């Protein structure tokens, strides 16, 4: 991966290049991304989705919740046949696409920090929707990180 340029934008291309899918999941990952892009950018659904993201509160939280809901919708529509371990990577990429769209169309001002916050919110909501406890996960990660130091 190399050194990180701290001044770079979190573009969809940067997110894509940092997601590494195993070969057996690559096709499923691309299909889900394609399906999500259709919903994000097709004429009939784009406005509806933006309405759902619109509202009070920080854009990071709204965007994360909106993308998590989108991924859950895809999961439901597929009769839960989407491999669950593809949901988070595909969702993060679609999230970056949505943020990029909002920035370029100047519908909302979206900063790198907003994108980062939306990623955290996205993961929290997905973990919770799948019956997990995100807070316990972070505590476990803290313990593990301390032990590794």
């Amino acid at each position: 991966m190399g050194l990180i340029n701290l001044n770079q934008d979190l573009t969809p291309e940067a997110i894509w290049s940092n997601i590494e899918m195993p070969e057996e999941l690559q096709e499923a990952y691309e299909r889900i991304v394609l399906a999500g892009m259709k919903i994000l950018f097709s004429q009939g659904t784009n406005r509806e989705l933006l309405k759902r993201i619109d509202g009070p509160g920080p854009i990071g939280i709204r965007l994360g919740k909106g993308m998590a809901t989108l991924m859950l919708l895809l999961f439901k529509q597929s009769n839960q046949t989407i491999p669950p371990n593809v949901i988070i990577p595909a969702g993060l990429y679609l999230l970056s696409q949505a943020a990029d769209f909002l920035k370029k169309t100047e519908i909302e001002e979206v900063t790198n920090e907003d994108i980062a916050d939306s990623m955290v919110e996205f993961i929290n909501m997905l973990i919770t929707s799948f019956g997990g406890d995100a807070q316990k996960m972070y505590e476990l990660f803290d313990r593990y990180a301390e032990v590794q130091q």
Partner: protein
Amino acid sequence: MTPYAPRHLQKTYLSRAMTRVMGMDAPIGDPFGGPAYKERNDPVSAILSIGAMAGSYMAAGTFAAMTLAQGMIFAGGAMSLAGNITGNSTLTKIGAVVGIVGGVGSLADLPGFNEQVFGGGEALSQTSSSVTNGAANANNGTLTNTPSGPKYPSSPSVVGAGGEVTPLTGGESVLQAGTGPEIIQNNIAASTPPTVQQPLVNTTQNFTPIQSPLQQQLASQGVATNSMAVAPVNEISTTSKVLDFANKNPMATLVLANTATQGLTSLADYASGGADARLDQLQADADYRTAMAEKLRAEAKAIEDRKAQLNENMALGLNIGVNPNAVSITPPGIINTYRSA
């Protein structure tokens, strides 16, 4: 009078009902194609249902729920990138941990991860009663719980993305760049690692402990580790093979999962979900065709009823302005074309 236009220049406006039918063949989100499962929503209807979606989609502790978290390993690089650029500590933490774990195994290797995050409680201690030998088919086995947790190297070290363990000696910071997320570590005096309760540990000869590369590395350095995973003599060793294992060895699956009923049901259902979905799709197709046939029958009946009414009216001598014997004459040279409104 509507001016005549060639067919290829005529506009056709589809109703929502028609687009909904069209949506059957191209469902949203189905990565494998095929008709939507019991859903007849077009994209607009699908989006309108977003606001209605809430609640849990998987029971806690299910295989799918645990698998969801594995996706963080694949996206660890992206999360690390975002965390490092923005200074978001949560993303940096996730990216660092999954980067370490992903290089050597899975999140299931983290002691207590599945139990505490998706099990709704502390790591479970389970003992199973000893059973007769059944190692060949893995339906039987003896598992006991030994609550000693994994032990860590006494000197601080850095685990690289490929699983190599590099001891640090005093004072230096290590910036590692590689295929995974960057990990910046400072040499901190080793502290006593916490003892973590392991749910199940195999101590019988009927099962072979499965160790991740990290555990093997630590074992080669004389650090005792406890494996959370067990495999029968017929080796099943990777997460991607668990479904095959579950299909062939339901009893062992029950033991591997933390809660017997949930684990067995969820794994078995997940493993056979594809077949069930296909069967249900066939049933949905059959239902649809039946409905279409009923509709055609109803229309045919309506036509018959109208004919009967017409004949009755004629018999009564009612003038309804229709000549039932009228013949449609098509002038030569004109193509009969259906015109839409």
